[in-house]
């Protein structure tokens, strides 16, 4: 069995790109199509009140998406497995709930493997994010911490 065909890597803006370095040593991903997904949380203020303000309106998202994807492209060669020959795709998702958004992406991309790189035990990508994804993802999930490699 060729495993995995498609792997999706979760990445968020609270860490630098080095957190993805554990992937560099995962040689079994050499032929895998890798999607690196950056998740940006949208924030709504005043929902249900007399006002409604959204942090990151639609028109603000496009330039941010371009900037993020360009940044990911600059760094990606340092994190891909050595001799990686599979496709690489970059995606930037704006959503209200990063955990659910990531699971939805795993589903829609028909991923075989989700990868969550986490350094901290607390914060945006803490164990609750990993735990939620591990219980709700439609595929297998690997959770790593950068200190392990």
């Amino acid at each position, binding site marked *: *069995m*060729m*495993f*995995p065909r498609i792997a999706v890597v979760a990445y968020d803006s609270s860490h630098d790109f080095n957190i993805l370095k*554990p992937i560099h*040593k*995962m*040689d*079994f991903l*050499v032929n895998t199509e890798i999607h690196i997904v950056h998740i940006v949380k949208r924030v709504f203020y005043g929902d249900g009140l007399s006002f409604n303000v959204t942090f990151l309106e639609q028109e603000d998202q496009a330039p941010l998406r371009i900037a993020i994807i360009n940044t990911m492209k600059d760094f990606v060669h340092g994190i891909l497995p050595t001799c990686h020959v599979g496709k690489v795709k970059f995606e930037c998702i704006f959503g209200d709930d990063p955990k659910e958004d990531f699971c939805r992406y795993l*589903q829609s991309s*028909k*991923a*075989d493997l989700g990868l969550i790189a986490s350094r901290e*035990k607390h914060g945006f990508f*803490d*164990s609750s994010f*990993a*735990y939620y994804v*591990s*219980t*709700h*993802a*439609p*595929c*297998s*999930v*690997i*959770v*790593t*911490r950068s200190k*392990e490699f």
Partner: protein
Amino acid sequence: MKKFKSVVIGFKFDEDPEVINFLLGLEFLRESSIHLVHMSISLDFNSLLEINLAAYPSAEAKIIIEQAILTKLSESKSQLLSKGFVGHIDNHCIFTDNIKKGFCKYALEVNADLIILMPEKKHSLFGSFTHYQLAHANAPVMVLRPTRDEA
């Protein structure tokens, strides 16, 4: 091409056969040193109560349980070997009063490169054990789930 040299796989024996089949098909494990581990709860109140009765399971029962579990784990070992596995496989039955910590500690002791857990259902309450490993394990944790079939 062997990055996961030491792999610890937690077995509860209520795993979905489909998940087991999926595990057997993971090519990147074929050269690894695999530890098939079953954690069993053991309670010992002797140190607190200064009596000899408050221990479960008893030493005799422990031997029987351990033998039964190792026999069961051997079946999984045979399955792995039948799928072209060329690495090393060890079976372990570990008795501890805290299976979450005990499993974590074992993974640390054998210097695990990867921990594999197999939840029985998609949204089951396999909860605190997996949650604990995700938060405390010193190795990457892979939660195994066959792809797409059940999605």
